[in-house]
């Protein structure tokens, strides 16, 4: 698109992109495209503001539900030798409380804030895949509620939120309780990943023109790091969950020591996820704090670049800490020292952020409004939790404190200080952005003091009872050991804190309103989410020339509202978003994004139903739900994506003419697939780790163990050749498509499919013919876990291939309209590479060691 040699339309000196007056009907067309469905069609809504609010509301509901469970526990522990609640129920209570707080409240709540705030903050019309967010929300809401109700039937998981085997293996947990955790939570992780993909692509590709990485708000940095961490952390727990479920359902002994397994494998996989999880929860909260403080004190954030660096650094370093949850497992001291050192290193970037906040407060004029109160409370509680964190990072101290109430105190100080208080600050701060007048200052102040005093009164005494030796996860304790007073104080504190939560809830119910339009900028903040908004977000998409555009350009809001910036209407009559380049945010193309629909809602119902009916082993029902999910996803893709070049390039102002369709690395679809493959590759790395770890603990002679043998090496050559040929065939299909030979392309795709299935099938056949079985020993289990995972990919490729061919026969794939093909090819090549790597793991790895 060579344009005239005009001045750069993104520079602050260029004239405003669009002139006045705006053509008649422009705003009406925009409003029509973005109208939200009402009445019985409401569940089809995809507008990020609505999904964001639903998402946050549901997360807060889970916060309250899990809080009620906590109150029950505190009631039981108020007095020694109390018999209000029995041991079994207590076990279910703390497991469900911890699980719900971590998976159904904390992660979804911050993800919801991202979905709600990011588009406005980046001045995007919406995130790139609105239906994906909506799908993630519905799957989470339905699945989470069913999961929670398991506690009413005594079927809730009871093995602790980290579900250590062998306690959670079939032998010691024969009921369905553990399966509820594995399948119920397992798929909610899928929903978190869907949200993460959305956020990564949105932050990198949907920023307003001129909002370079250097000008991107800290909250966007935080959400970017948050989402990237989900991409690398959640696969570990997904893989662990798969292994444990395979062990429970089919007796594949990954964690059973008598048959070559090792329970520590679970601990490694779980904590490789579990520690980053803490930062996954904390970083977005820190990002919110970095946005709220500057507005509350009317000063720019001190050390903007340092804070961005700290977020990146924490994102990485937090992956080097997981073994500090395993200090008491007998791992050699030097290994522990590596992790202890990394645990200290990660406190450096966190410290940098804390000092940046304090410095910002010091340079400005603090106003003690409710958000600021919660921020100050956050600083106090979080720093205390950080200090006890440094204490337990010291190995000998941890040996004393491990599994006592000291750890319970530490983790609640960090989580409540680091996440709940910033979230409450954020709710009070951003409530006016939804429309309405915002929340009540009086109620908010009361709630703050109740929460602040209540939380400290609940958890400070636990340091003491913990040091006196009270173990965590006990349903009662004997009288006469000096524990009574500390426990009673904790219970009283919990009641006080609960009153604080109740006040917040009343305030939200009374005063929170969502309006189509926003009231203004009550805190006089500098970032774009305070621009006037409608359902379509900002009327026109501002040209960004600084970090705090509303502070540096007081006229911006008015200009945006008049439609004088980019894309003041809709070029295609549909919903569009402006896609920009990831570093410099230069406009690339106009992406058409799908509007409301039922397909993604049905897909969510199908997904949730599939996993939940598997829990109770209703296999046929599960199959039905699974089919519903797949069919709905295909329909959603068919109707909503890859529309092709439906019109010639469109003017968005400032002399910029943008195409309405893109493929390859410019397109958001391509980026989404790349991120998905990062997730997938991480799962495969966990699979490889499983092999390596089990080999290490079994010893060279026992891998494979006596009496088990792999098929001879030549038997693996044919499958490998077939799989490689499949990769070649799909590349050939790409060439044929480029030449416009649609039919030949379809045939090549089908041939590639046949080759892949034949390759994987013959490999499986050879293993079975050699007499290998998964049940006898961890070696076989590891080999067949690999096969299982390849099979899942084969099934995915099968569906994709048939979908692609069907689209091609419907005339929806051609040399220009080729995004579907490109995305399928990316996944396909990954599956081929993964299959080859998997074969190397099966056939070459044990031989190389022998």
């Amino acid at each position, binding site marked *: 698109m060579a344009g005239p040699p005009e001045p750069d339309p993104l520079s602050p000196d260029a004239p405003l992109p669009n002139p006045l007056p705006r053509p008649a009907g422009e705003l009406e067309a925009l409003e029509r495209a973005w109208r939200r469905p009402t009445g019985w069609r409401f569940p089809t809504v995809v507008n990020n503001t609505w999904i964001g609010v639903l998402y946050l509301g549901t997360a807060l509901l889970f916060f309250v539900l899990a809080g009620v469970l906590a109150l029950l526990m505190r009631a039981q522990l108020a007095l020694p030798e109390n018999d209000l609640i029995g041991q079994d129920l207590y076990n279910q209570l703390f497991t469900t409380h911890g699980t719900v707080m971590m998976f159904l409240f904390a992660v979804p709540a911050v993800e919801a804030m991202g979905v709600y705030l990011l588009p406005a903050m980046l001045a995007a019309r919406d995130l790139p895949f609105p239906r994906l967010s909506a799908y993630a929300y519905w799957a989470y809401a339905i699945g989470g509620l069913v999961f929670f109700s398991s506690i009413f039937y005594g079927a809730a998981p009871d093995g602790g939120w980290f579900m250590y085997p062998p306690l959670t293996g079939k032998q010691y947990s024969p009921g369905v309780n553990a399966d509820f955790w594995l399948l119920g939570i397992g798929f909610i992780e899928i929903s978190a990943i869907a949200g993460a993909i959305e956020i990564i692509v949105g932050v990198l590709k949907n920023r307003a023109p001129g909002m370079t990485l*250097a000008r991107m708000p800290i909250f966007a940095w935080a959400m970017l790091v948050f989402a990237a961490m989900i991409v690398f952390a959640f696969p570990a727990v997904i893989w662990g969950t798969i292994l444990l479920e395979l062990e429970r359902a089919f007796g594949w002994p990954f964690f059973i020591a008598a048959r070559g397994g090792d329970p520590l494998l679970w601990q490694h996989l779980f904590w490789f996820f579990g520690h980053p999880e803490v930062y996954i929860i904390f970083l977005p909260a820190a990002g919110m704090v970095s946005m709220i403080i500057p507005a509350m004190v009317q000063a720019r954030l001190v050390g903007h670049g340092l804070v961005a660096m700290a977020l990146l650094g924490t994102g990485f370093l937090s992956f080097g800490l997981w073994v500090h949850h395993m200090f008491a497992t007998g791992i050699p001291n*030097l290994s522990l020292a*590596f992790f202890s050192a990394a645990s200290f290193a990660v406190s450096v970037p966190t410290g940098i952020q804390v000092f940046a906040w304090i410095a910002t407060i010091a340079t400005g004029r603090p106003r003690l409004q409710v958000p600021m109160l919660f921020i100050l409370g956050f600083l106090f509680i979080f720093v205390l939790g950080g200090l006890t964190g440094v204490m337990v990072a010291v190995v000998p101290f941890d040996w004393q404190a491990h599994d006592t109430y000291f750890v319970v105190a530490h983790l609640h100080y960090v989580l409540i200080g680091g996440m709940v208080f910033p979230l409450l600050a954020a709710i009070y701060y951003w409530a006016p952005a939804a429309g309405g007048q915002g929340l009540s200052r009086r109620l908010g102040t009361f709630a703050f003091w109740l929460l602040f005093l209540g939380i400290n009164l609940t958890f400070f005494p636990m340091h003491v009872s913990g040091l006196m030796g009270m173990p965590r996860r006990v349903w009662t304790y004997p009288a006469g050991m000096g524990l009574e007073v500390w426990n009673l104080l904790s219970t009283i504190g919990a009641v006080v804190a609960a009153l604080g939560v109740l006040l917040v809830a009343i305030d939200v119910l009374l005063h929170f309103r969502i309006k189509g339009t926003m009231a203004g900028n009550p805190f006089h903040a500098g970032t774009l989410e305070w621009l006037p908004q409608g359902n379509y977000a900002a009327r026109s998409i501002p040209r960004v020339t600084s970090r705090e555009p509303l502070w540096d350009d007081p006229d911006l809001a008015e200009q945006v509202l008049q439609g004088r910036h980019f894309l003041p209407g809709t070029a295609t009559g549909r919903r569009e978003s402006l896609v920009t380049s990831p570093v410099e945010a230069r406009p690339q193309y106009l992406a058409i994004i799908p509007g409301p629909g039922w397909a993604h809602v049905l897909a969510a119902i199908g997904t949730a139903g599939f996993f939940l009916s598997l829990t109770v082993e209703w296999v046929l029902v599960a199959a039905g739900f699974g089919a519903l999910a797949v069919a709905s996803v295909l329909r959603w893709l068919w109707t909503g994506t890859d529309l092709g070049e439906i019109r010639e390039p469109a003017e968005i102002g400032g002399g910029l003419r943008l195409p309405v369709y893109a493929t390859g690395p410019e397109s958001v679809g391509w980026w989404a697939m790349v991120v998905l493959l990062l997730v997938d590759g991480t799962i495969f790395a966990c699979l490889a780790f499983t092999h390596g770890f089990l080999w290490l603990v079994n010893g060279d002679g026992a891998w494979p163990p006596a009496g088990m043998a792999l098929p001879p090496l030549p038997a693996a050559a044919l499958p490998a050749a077939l799989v490689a040929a499949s990769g070649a065939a799909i590349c050939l299909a790409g060439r044929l498509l480029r030449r416009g030979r649609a039919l030949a392309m379809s045939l090549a795709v089908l041939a590639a499919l046949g080759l892949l299935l034949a390759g994987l099938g013959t490999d499986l056949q050879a293993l079975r013919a050699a007499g290998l079985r998964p049940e006898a020993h961890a070696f076989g289990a590891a080999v067949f876990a690999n096969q299982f995972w390849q099979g899942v990919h084969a099934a995915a490729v099968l569906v994709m291939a048939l979908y692609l061919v069907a689209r091609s026969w419907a005339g929806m794939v051609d040399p220009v309209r080729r995004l579907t093909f490109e995305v399928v090819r990316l996944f396909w090549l990954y599956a081929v590479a993964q299959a080859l790597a998997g074969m190397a793991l099966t056939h070459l790895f044990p031989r190389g060691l022998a």
Partner: protein
Amino acid sequence: MMRARAPGFSAITGALAALLVWAGHFTLIYGAHALACERGFADAALLGLPAVPALVLGASLAALLAVGLVGWRAWRRLDGSLAAEAGEDAPRFLAWLTLATALLAALAILWEAVPVLLLHSCR
């Protein structure tokens, strides 16, 4: 209107290079050490030096060199002016970010390597 290809994926991974080196270093020392202990190489020797500490220190030196290189190149792109604030110019900001992450990565690598000098390898 597009200038020469806008920097994309590679610019972002470039800013992360030092932290990626850190990740590789951490995986390597932890993996190699676990292997050595599990397979009884605790007191093995490498060129006359105790193997585990030699390996860990060697890997750490290599990692520090790599991180130093990343940082030095970023510093050159900053024309040697070490402002405390990154500024709003995008290429400069990325160079600044690269340098800052390199410092953090170097600190973490150093910190993690020191214990081999103090502790017995496998007890």
